[in-house]
């Protein structure tokens, strides 16, 4: 057990390190540099050199990376070149937004996908199932940047049920916070609903063909009881795995929703930082996202082994 944990920890460190190097190289290879974002059109050759020197950007790349690494190991991820906001602060304000968006979208996805799958998996390829399948594809073909304006037009501008933009931290005002997060969360949820529904349905259909189900039926157990107690549990394994993956991908992928709903999350921050060549901010956020991703995978894997003892650990 301990060796397993240590092994995963080592994996985390190695992955984080490699990613930090790759991100560093990638952003520094981009044309332009932060002086343009800072000075705008007021760039003269002299100004630019002065500023580059002040920012520590005219030393060799490996040196710059080394400095960053040393600071990072001491917990100092630096600041934005433009606003001087610390990277830590940007992450501290942005991360909860993304976490909440993901939680809401996943909760809604499960709340819709599970019941529908439970119903339709009993009669596959019948009309109800076909309707659900078609509907699912509608959701999948509607990416967030398409759903969001439609949701806003109907529920915000039309019905005035929700705000069009804005965010209040949960700690400040939980009710407002949830109220603000519903439309953005819904905009993110469509793809997840489709995926979870199809997967669960698929698993349930296969499980329902298993011998132990036939046996339960022959014992006279009702269909509903079979479904809930016998069939559903094994099916949750794949669901768990896929959820882990889905959430991992959403981690820094919420940019579009954050941009449209004017929320200050990590997706928006990292894209803006890349555009403005705000190197330290890009590195810091990329690092945090990568770590969060690895930790997430670890948790999922661990849950997996706990839940199904037959699965071996590698």
């Amino acid at each position, binding site marked *: 057990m301990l060796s397993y944990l240590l092994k995963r920890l080592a994996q985390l460190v190695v992955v984080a390190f490699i990613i930090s190097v790759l991100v560093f190289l990638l952003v520094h290879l981009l044309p332009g540099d932060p002086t343009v974002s800072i000075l705008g*059109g007021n760039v*003269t050759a002299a100004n630019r050199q002065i500023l580059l020197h002040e920012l520590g950007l005219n030393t060799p790349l490996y040196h710059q990376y080394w400095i960053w690494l040393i600071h990072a190991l001491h917990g100092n991820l630096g600041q934005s070149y433009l*606003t001087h906001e610390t990277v830590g602060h940007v992450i501290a304000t942005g991360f909860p937004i993304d976490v909440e968006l993901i939680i809401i979208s996943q909760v809604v996805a499960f709340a819709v996908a599970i019941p529908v799958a439970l119903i339709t998996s009993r009669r596959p390829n019948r009309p109800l199932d076909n309707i659900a399948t078609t509907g699912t594809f509608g959701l999948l073909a509607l990416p967030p940047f398409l759903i969001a304006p439609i949701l806003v*037009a109907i529920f915000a501008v039309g019905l005035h049920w929700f705000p*069009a*933009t804005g965010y209040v931290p949960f700690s400040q005002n939980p009710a407002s916070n949830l109220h603000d997060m519903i439309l953005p969360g819904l905009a993110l949820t469509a793809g997840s609903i489709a995926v979870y529904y199809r997967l669960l349905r698929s698993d349930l259909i296969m499980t329902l063909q298993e011998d132990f189900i036939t046996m339960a039926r022959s014992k006279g157990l009702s269909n509903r009881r079979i479904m809930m107690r016998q069939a559903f549990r094994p099916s949750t394994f794949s669901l768990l795995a896929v959820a882990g993956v889905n959430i991992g991908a959403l981690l820094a992928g919420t940019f579009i929703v954050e941009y449209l709903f*004017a929320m200050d999350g990590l997706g928006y921050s990292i894209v803006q930082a890349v555009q403005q060549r705000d190197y330290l901010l890009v590195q810091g956020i990329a690092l945090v996202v990568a770590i969060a991703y690895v930790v997430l995978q670890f948790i999922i894997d661990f849950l997996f082994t706990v839940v199904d003892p037959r699965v071996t650990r590698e």
Partner: protein
Amino acid sequence: MFLSRGAATGGIILVGAGASAGLAGCSSGSSGSSTSTGANKGGKAGVSTGTPKRGGKAVIGTTADIDGFFPPTNHWDNNGFLYANTIYDPLTAVAADGSIKPYLAETITPNSTYTTWTLKLRSGITFHDGSALTAAVVKANFDALKASALTGIALEQVTSVTITDPLTVVYNFADPFVSLPASLATQVGYVVGQAMLDAVSKSPTTPPHPVGTGPFIYDTWQPNDHFTATRNPHYWRSGYPYLDSITYRPIPDTTQREATLKTGGVDLILSADPVTVNHFTGQSPYQVVDSLSDITGEPDVAFILLNCASPPTNDLRVRQALAKATDQAQVIKLFGGGLSQPSNGLFPKGSKYYSNTGYPTFDPTGAKTLVSAYKQQHGTPTIELVTVPDSRDIKVTQVLQQMWEAVGFNISVKTVEQAELISNVVTGNFQAYTFEQYASPDPDLNYVWWSTTTVAPPGQIALNFSRNSDPQIETALLSGRRSPDPATRVKAYQTVNERLAQDLPYVWLGQTVWSEVGDARIQNFANPILPDGSPGQPFDNGIFFPTQIWMAG
């Protein structure tokens, strides 16, 4: 789609937020008007003649957030100036008739040769931290601005600044310099407290706590989320402000910003997209003010920036052909909401600097002839037209592509991000880029963009981006800079404008249209009164004064 946060920036602070590489720009400068409906007391949108009500809170939806509140190091676009007008005061401000009036200053007078300007401050003004506004503080501000990589250029001509008494600052110049008051209405004219200057000196990378003399006091700023300021009870302009607090919320997507106004999430929005005007005009109860009619100083214009030093745009025939092939009216109809008029230069009709410049009119046949002539010598001219990844800008380039290819050009369209775009423009590594610039209270503040002294070959950094080196322009610019005689100045800038129409470093695409739209409750947002009682410039390309705003009901 997405504008980088600084998309509206890019230009020089002289004119307080000049250039933008996209057509969804920024900047301060002249022009402000009230058009269309106003469901508010007084009839005219944004102007309220009723009795102001004290108290309440206003929430403003803006286009983007800023980098910071420190004038020497933070590049301000229109949003920067909004924030600045909230917690700071400028030394001078633009009046509705285009003249420059003292604001924080009590008087600003030149000597007979215009080589010295004497600025006397009003007495009894204190900063939010209780410290007094003195000449020493103003000089300290100046020193920081002059030393900065960002703002130093704007103050290049000043040879020294001296203090003759606790409230008097003297600016000295080597040559006559007529436009100092206009400069002091831009980024270099906002005065911050000594404590803020000290904080930055001590720790340059820590964001300093903003200290100003303005109508509101800095309260909280969460970048990309909101900025809030609360009423200054000791504001030197007695009676102001009316609001208890004001909050700005950056909402980058225009459609979402409009939706937020409609759902009541904000009381007022700003927009750089002309369609907003059309969306809300005539829709009760909204009050719509746009930047088109009142023309003072120099407006914000959209244009295609051409590189006069690289082929094929270095050939005058090519530039002439591009100008003739562009149907400005059609472009404006498609993207400008049909609101502005085609430009023939820097100044619109109604401006005192306007003249018949001789800028080519839409003439595709003439363009074709020019292109054929070029083609015989050098082959088909191929041009890469570049813009930022904004959906509207991209569409404009597609329209231009079709118009220009119709006369024989080979045009490819490309998008690059703002940072790279500005980088390329500055180093002359481009052929044709979309741009937006030149809004300013006085044309002299745009000197560096057109001067022959700021040209450099492609590959080197130059502020005269198009690298158009025209000695006649230089002479005219200097004449305008040095002569106090209004008629001479008008002639000078008309000459500049006419020379630009000959040299054609720019293909004009019309004035940009900024708008502000308020709901029924917000009052008097387009009716600032200057300290001497005269009306101020109502709406300056996305900038207004929050001082006189009040909330009804």
